[in-house]
């Protein structure tokens, strides 16, 4: 436990012991000395005597990696070739493939800082935020509907998504990014950007039900969502495990959990209208009669219970059609910002809850960060603290908080390498994985904190390392290959780069890009695309699915497609997109037959294969060889090899071009990044 943090904490908050609440608790030396809870070290960067090692260890990252590899009897892989590196960087930073011209430009740039220039170019691209914003949206379980039985749409939720994308593109310092999300409304009550950011506190699923409302129960669920995400997203601890009882493995007491929750005791939703009273009145005049009619019609439809009787069935269809027409006439909802505000007079008293059940109240608690990171007996914040979440954000973003910088540095590493230095990015506790390179992790976290929490600086640091630029191929020396695979099959010591399958969004976006169909429009309301009618009927309220009128919207990047909790797009689901119900630290990368069926028979791929075939003909001319070569360059970044050319030519003698185009969209060398 760093003395500096302790002093700073006392300075900021002035700890007051409050009586008649739960005990403030104490933590053993053993609990406090868990690696993630201790102050970061300033590790010495390893040095090497051998000239080749010195060359390879050109950055501190490389020195830490190389030292560990040598300790394990392993060695780094040769650098990836330029084509591979270009493709890797484009997908990594933009989530899109490089065009053949972009690959050629990189290969032809013989200057010594060609890679550095490319990294800068990509980091400056507006597409960067679309890719890295998605990583963050996974972590905060962003979705645009409530979930549960109504799965009500949140038509302005896209503003938060755009806020995240803007923040990444602007390289907003991470401490600022955290503070805005936790406490934007406390920073300013009239800055739209900050109000939108604070919508972070409302991203979780929300249960609403008709009938006898259990207000206390619903409030408890809302507070739970707000609390758990802080632990998972910012602190990398499974604080949620301590909701029902003291954490089984980590020094997080139940009282710690509820003290964290106390920061949110007065937080309520706040929809900030962005329309004038006149506009609102006009909206009401138009909507109210329609809503009344819709309600009546719904009543009629619900009375028809038999679908077996053809007359009743057709009546139901007719009424449903009428209903849909009415719904289409409803004026678009007026713009609003989803934010939160402190309502001190409605503050929920926070108690320890036995088994997490709101009815079983224990001792009352007030605000305090995690006790294991504070001195024993540290008191709670005064209940009258003016801006509670700002105080929490200050504690989280303090440069000496042992968790925050480590957790984010690790996320960045994981998204680049496909695997974190700590393999469990949301769990730095005892049940989580230990860091494979503790010194490197501390080095990166130190750099992150000392460079002003600039995420783009961290990207540069990592991407320009030799470790990142290694080949992903297995070593050619068979004896060494066998040794490396035996010693470290998971490649946790980074003796090569990890080949990675494109994530769902990358895959769909790449298909749109290579077929020439991508609509690069950025930002704005989310898009619903047409899907199989059978899927729409799986919604409790099928009328919620309203595909965009403008078909060019269907080719938008995947981050702009609606994130609906109760209906995930099959394409996304089958390729392991997270379910948005809980924080997702790292996606699975599974391999199974429904993926093949989606890519072979799905409407998305087949429509794009058609367009791809046309593109090959229109851009490469009549020459089949040129068409095949262009197809390979677009999908894999490289030229077709002679054997591939031969096989493709033979196929095209008898088979249609769209089938060849479809094949390209199914190739492993398209689906994977080396």
């Amino acid at each position, binding site marked *: 436990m760093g003395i500096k943090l302790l002093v700073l904490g006392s300075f900021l908050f002035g700890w007051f012991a409050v009586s008649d609440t739960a005990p403030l608790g104490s933590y053993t030396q053993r609990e406090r000395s868990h690696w993630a809870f201790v102050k970061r070290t300033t590790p010495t960067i390893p040095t090497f005597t051998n000239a080749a090692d010195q060359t390879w260890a050109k950055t501190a990252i490389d020195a830490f990696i190389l030292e560990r590899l040598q300790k394990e009897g392993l060695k780094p892989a040769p650098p990836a070739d330029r084509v591979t590196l270009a493709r890797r960087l484009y997908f990594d930073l933009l989530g899109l493939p490089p065009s053949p011209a972009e690959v050629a430009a990189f290969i032809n740039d013989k200057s010594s800082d060609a890679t550095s220039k490319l990294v800068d170019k990509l980091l400056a691209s507006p597409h960067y935020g679309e890719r890295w914003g998605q990583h963050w949206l996974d972590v905060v379980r962003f979705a645009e509907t409530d979930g*549960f*039985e109504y799965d009500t749409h949140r038509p302005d939720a896209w503003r938060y998504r755009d806020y995240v994308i803007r923040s990444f593109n602007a390289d907003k310092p991470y401490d600022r990014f955290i503070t805005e999300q936790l406490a934007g409304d406390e920073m300013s009550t009239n800055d739209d950007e900050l109000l939108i950011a604070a919508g972070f506190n409302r991203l979780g699923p929300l249960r609403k*039900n008709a*009938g*006898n409302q259990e207000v206390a129960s619903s409030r408890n*669920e809302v507070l739970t969502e707000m609390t758990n995400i802080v632990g998972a997203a910012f602190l990398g*601890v*499974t604080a*949620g*495990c301590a909701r029902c009882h003291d954490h089984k493995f980590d020094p997080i007491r139940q009282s710690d959990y509820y003290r964290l929750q106390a920061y949110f005791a007065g937080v309520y939703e706040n929809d900030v209208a962005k329309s004038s009273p006149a506009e609102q009145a006009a909206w009401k005049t138009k909507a109210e009669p329609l809503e009344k009619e819709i309600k009546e019609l719904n009543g009629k439809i*619900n009375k028809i*219970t*038999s679908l077996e*009787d053809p007359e009743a069935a057709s009546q139901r269809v007719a009424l449903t059609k009428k209903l849909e027409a009415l719904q289409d006439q409803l004026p678009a909802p007026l713009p609003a910002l989803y934010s939160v505000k402190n309502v001190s007079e409605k503050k929920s008293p926070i108690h320890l809850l036995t088994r997490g059940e709101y009815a079983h109240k224990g001792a009352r608690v007030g605000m305090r960060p995690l006790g294991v990171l504070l001195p024993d007996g540290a008191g709670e914040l005064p209940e009258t603290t003016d801006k509670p979440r700002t105080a929490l954000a200050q504690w989280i973003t303090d440069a000496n908080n042992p968790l925050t910088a480590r957790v984010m540095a690790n996320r960045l590493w994981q998204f680049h390498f496909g*695997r974190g230095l700590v*393999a469990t990015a949301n*769990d730095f*506790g005892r*049940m989580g994985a*230990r860091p494979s390179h503790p010194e490197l992790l501390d080095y990166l976290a130190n750099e992150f904190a000392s460079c002003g929490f600039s995420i783009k600086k961290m990207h540069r640091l990592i991407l320009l390392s030799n470790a990142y630029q290694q080949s992903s191929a297995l070593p050619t020396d068979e004896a060494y290959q066998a040794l490396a695979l035996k010693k470290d*099959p998971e*490649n946790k010591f980074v003796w090569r780069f*990890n*080949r*990675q399958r494109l994530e769902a969004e990358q895959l769909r976006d790449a298909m749109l890009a290579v077929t020439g169909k991508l609509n690069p429009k950025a930002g704005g309301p989310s898009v619903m695309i047409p899907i199989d009618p*059978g899927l729409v*009927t799986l*919604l*409790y309220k099928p009328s919620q699915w309203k595909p965009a009128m403008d078909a060019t919207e269907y080719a938008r990047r995947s981050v702009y497609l609606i994130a609906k909790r109760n209906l995930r797009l099959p394409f996304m*689901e*089958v390729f*392991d997109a997270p*379910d948005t*119900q809980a924080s997702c630290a790292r996606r*699975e*990368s599974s*391999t*199974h*037959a*429904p*993926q*093949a*069926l*989606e890519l*072979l*028979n799905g*409407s998305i791929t087949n429509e794009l294969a058609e367009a791809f075939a046309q593109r090959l003909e229109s851009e490469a001319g009549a020459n089949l060889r040129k068409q095949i070569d262009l197809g390979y360059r677009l999908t894999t970044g490289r030229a077709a*090899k002679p*054997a*591939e050319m031969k*096989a*493709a030519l033979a*196929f095209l003698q*008898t*088979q249609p071009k769209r*089938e060849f185009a479809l*094949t390209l969209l*199914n*190739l*492993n060398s398209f689906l994977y990044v080396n």
Partner: protein
Amino acid sequence: MPTEHYRITNTRREFLRDAFCGFGGMAFGAMLAAQEAHAQNPLAPKKPHLPAKAKSVIFLFLSGGPSHMESFDPKPLLNKLHGQKRPASFGEAKYQFVSPTATLLGTKRTFQRYGKNGIEVSDLFPQLAQRIDDIAVIRSVHSDMVVHSAAQYQLFTGRVVPGFPSMGAWAIYGLGNESQSLPAYVVLPDPHGAQEGGMPMYSNGFLPAVYQPTMFRPGNRPVLNLDLPKGVTLDQRRKTLGLLKQLNQMDMQPDDAEFSARLNAYDLAFKMQTEAPAIFDLSNEPQETLDLYGIGKPATDDYGRRCLMARRLVEKGVRFVCPVSGGGTGNLQWDAHSDIEENHTRMAAQSDQPMAALLTDLKRRGLLDSTLVVIGGEFGRSPESEGSKGRDHHNLGYTMLMAGGGVQGGIVHGATDDIGLRAIEKPVHLRDLHATILHQLGLDQELLTYLHLGREERLTETLGTVVTDII
């Protein structure tokens, strides 16, 4: 030290190891052949932890909450107290809609005794009653939520919030699939519409996408993407797949496990595409079987087809099948708020014969012993009336049925109090029901875990108790 599930694996050795992480009881190096199979197909059958009684589960989900008092749990006292307020001695209950001033509602149903032990069944289920000697009637089920979505999540996933894997996903995570050409976990939704809980109730939650349910569409072509796109012939597609394989093989090391698995996924996909449609086609069933299920009769045609489909699927080794009875807005489910008589008469008329036929058909084909059939909804209904003729949701005590798969037939387990309000004898929480289902499949609830966000998650969360009295 456990780590989260990992799949960045280029080598066969790694892949084999990873394919098994999360299985506490399985030692690396054992069952090499099985491992080989898993490297190629993550849904290849796996050995259960314990000797299994059941290979498959069919869950006849009666969505909306069927009444226990109108079906399998007769309450003479309720009829006597009709129109009166609930005596205080029965304790409190929270309902979603019923007001505190509501009075008790007697049932208009009549009950008769059936089977070797004379178990009482109402006149809504005359055909299921004929199968009572195959059925264990659990009259003491209880759960925690009184609203649909949360109760449906608990029924399927053990949790009252969305985001957790359903029992079907857990079953195939634990056991894989016996069929190579059919999906492992199938939901047959009611064509009237969906449930309040929506897709998250059936879903794989945080388990990898390979464990997701396959939602059947109505008709003979139920699986999305199993049909060839318009204008493409099977022969043409075979050639396309040939080219794909050829090109992929040119660009990989022969022992690259993940790429091999991907090649295999395409082979499996093609196999499904060519073999599955015949299994989905009910037209080659004999007329006698169609009649048994009530196919061709307006009321029972739809659910009859889906129950018959369930039999055909488990016959081919599909692990978990869920034909849903009821869907769409309230009264199209068993959600009898306004008129219990009208609702339950209609819903039972659609489902009684198909459910009974399924038991009959499974039994005569020798499949009932290896197929666990579970029947029930996300809760029961209130002894109090809602309005004058309806019943509200009720989670403190209600009935579910189990049959086959090693479950004793012709028995009653547990009891509610004399008005059907509360499970008072041998209460069975949903987590006990889940533990029992897993147990019959040979899965140990403590070993079937998956590390997610720092917790070893399991279907039964705080562990259930296997209902040994009925097995």
